[in-house]
């Protein structure tokens, strides 16, 4: 069957139909949209620090939202400013973000700079009374990440972390199904993100190498762990409702030996107290397997990136699943499933089923940005969002540490916060 792209608005409308049901239980941050009606006609005045490629992607999503005014941009790299002004021609331009934060007109700030800048930019934004969306990873050290978390807890401002899978329709449906028990107990998660390119951006002049290719240098980034794994290991806590306490791994540079400092070939294993494991693998010199999170249950497996699920034996009938969904959403229509007898021969190949009826063309980023805009207007902090981001970051950092130090790491108590099976240390409770 032809799969049609799903629009952001259609998806939000669909979700509103089931809001209050299972979706809000598994993805509580969607409560950000609960106030949507009350904010119509209002504008969120937002500034972007670091309108590089990711920053401008966010700007495009912001510009598409009628509730947004992009009032300022800040960068010390003129080509990024020039490109960003094409999206938001009326935005004020700053080179110093601290100067920008003095602007009382700004309500929310998007931080999309290299990781080593995040801590001060986020905390300074809170201090200036701004709501913040900080790109993942939160930072590149455990200490900085905890500092950002504590600063957020100590203020009344909203914080979003750019973990867009949390807003991706495929993932939301996958988690809903996992929680329904339809895949049986989840027995493990295999995540991988393979590519075949040097991960470099063109550098107009050699002195700009570290500024532009900051992902390749340890002063600014932990490479594939903070840039790629961070997205994928977050799925572990969402799907399992558990956090791992043992981390091991091995990393090396095997192909792109071009002066970079971060690994181009990594394998990390996260072990949960109950014996379950989640792995992350990334090789950026072979791309056949691409990226996926294979969430493997006793009765079925789900691959949210592909948007598909597979049952171990006989899957549910797609027509019947459609009927269930239609009933749940009070949609009426005759479902096409009657016909000559179904025989097993017609179902020999397990091609899986789509998680949502229509294949989405977006990864949740625009929905995440819409949610942030709602929160900037209402001041509402959706639950669990920061905690999911916190552990995505710290687990990525610990994976890097395990590889770097070539040892098995136990999740350090001093960096635990109150979330799922983790408890913050008593004296340090925040």
């Amino acid at each position, binding site marked *: *069957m032809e799969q049609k792209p799903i629009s952001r608005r259609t998806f939000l409308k669909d979700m509103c139909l089931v809001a*209050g*049901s*299972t979706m809000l239980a598994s993805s509580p941050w969607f409560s950000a949209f609960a106030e949507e009606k009350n904010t119509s006609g209002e504008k969120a005045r937002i500034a972007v620090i670091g309108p590089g490629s990711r920053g401008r992607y966010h700007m495009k999503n912001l510009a598409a939202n009628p509730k947004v005014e992009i009032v300022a941009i800040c960068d010390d790299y003129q080509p990024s400013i020039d490109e960003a002004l094409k999206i938001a021609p009326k935005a004020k331009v700053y080179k110093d973000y601290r100067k920008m934060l003095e602007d009382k007109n700004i309500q929310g700030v998007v931080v999309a700079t290299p990781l080593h800048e995040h801590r001060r930019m986020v905390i300074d934004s809170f201090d200036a009374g701004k709501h913040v969306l900080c790109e993942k990873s939160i930072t590149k050290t455990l200490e900085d990440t905890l500092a950002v978390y504590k600063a957020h807890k100590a203020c009344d401002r909203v914080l979003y972390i750019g973990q867009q899978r949390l807003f991706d329709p495929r993932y939301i449906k996958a988690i809903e199904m996992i929680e*329904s028990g*339809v895949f049986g107990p989840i027995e493990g998660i295999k995540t991988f993100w393979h590519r075949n390119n040097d991960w470099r951006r063109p550098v107009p002049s050699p002195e700009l190498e570290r500024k532009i290719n900051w992902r390749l240098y340890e002063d600014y980034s932990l490479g594939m762990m903070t840039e790629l794994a961070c997205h994928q290991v977050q799925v572990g806590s969402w799907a399992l409702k558990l956090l791992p306490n043992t981390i091991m791994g091995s990393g090396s540079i095997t192909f792109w030996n071009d002066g970079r400092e971060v690994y181009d070939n990594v394998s990390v294993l996260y072990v949960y107290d109950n014996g379950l494991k989640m792995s992350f693998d990334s090789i950026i010199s072979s791309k056949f397997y691409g990226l996926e999170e294979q969430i493997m249950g006793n*009765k*079925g497996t789900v691959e949210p990136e592909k948007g598909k699920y597979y*049952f171990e*034996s*006989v899957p*549910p*009938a797609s*027509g*019947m*699943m459609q*009927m*269930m969904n239609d*009933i*749940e959403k*009070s949609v*009426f*229509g*005759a*479902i*096409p*499933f*009657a*016909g*000559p*007898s*179904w*025989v*097993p*021969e*017609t179902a020999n190949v397990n091609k899986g089923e789509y998680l949502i009826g229509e294949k989405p063309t977006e990864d949740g980023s625009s929905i995440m940005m819409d949610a942030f805009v709602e929160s900037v207007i209402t001041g509402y902090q959706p639950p669990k969002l920061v905690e999911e981001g916190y552990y995505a970051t710290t687990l990525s950092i610990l994976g890097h540490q395990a590889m770097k130090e070539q040892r098995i790491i136990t999740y350090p108590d001093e960096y635990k916060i109150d979330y799922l099976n983790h408890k913050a240390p008593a004296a340090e409770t925040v």
Partner: protein
Amino acid sequence: MNTLENSIYKELEGKGSIFYGWATAMHTRIDMILCHRDKNTSENAAIAAVEELKRLEKRLNRFDPFSDITRINALADQEPVKLDDEMWNILTLATEYGAKTNYLFDITAGSPNQDTPPHNRIWLDPDKRVILFKVKGVEIDLGGFAKGYGVEMIRNKLLAEGWTDFLINFGNSTICAQGTRPGGDGWSVGVENLESPGSNILEVVLRNQSLNTSGNTAEHSRHIFSKGIGPIDGIGSVSIVSNHPLDGEILSTAVFGACHQENSSLAFARKFSGIRAYAIKYTGKGHSLQILL
């Protein structure tokens, strides 16, 4: 392995609940939606239904060397075979349907020996409750009967237990819809266009009714036998809406067969109450839908 492959249960805001369970039985799949009871009660009802089908399958499957029907097929041309109550009821019912459909439905249609007319092939003795084949080479095949019978049994049991709203889909070809889906008025079901999966050729709303379909697909044909013709070729199907899944099961086969007979009449089908019949034909350049009754 569990009786049920799996199930999903959903609470509906202000509209009760729905349970969906599925399994395989009788060489096909069964999908059941049961409404408005708690998860455990629903699951137990679904499990009981599948167990009933599997029990019947063990008795009625002629491909199972240990089934009752295999034993009857092996022995009844040599000596009378004693039948228990259930098997007696099944075989008398099946032969009565044969007579009612002018043997367009015939449990002996696939027998190697076609010389004797269908009504003269087997003898059921009501006094001794035995079956005897009157001629050699008779073979009983309950393939076109068992699914409808099984669903009829399940439906009756669910009704006796007080279930009011449910849908049983046995292999897509036998759909029994009782009451209504939550928030609706009956159950809307479409007969799928085999050339354009996901779209309907025919849409019907069922309420305390069944929709049975018999026919050939490109992958699965020549499995329905018709009087004097043998296995039927061509891609197409007949769908019957009826008040009873077993009536529908029998009539879908019989009417499909009648459509392939010269000078056929559907007068026999009109004797059943509450029947609607549709024929779909695929020509290679599209399809046609004909309302037969």
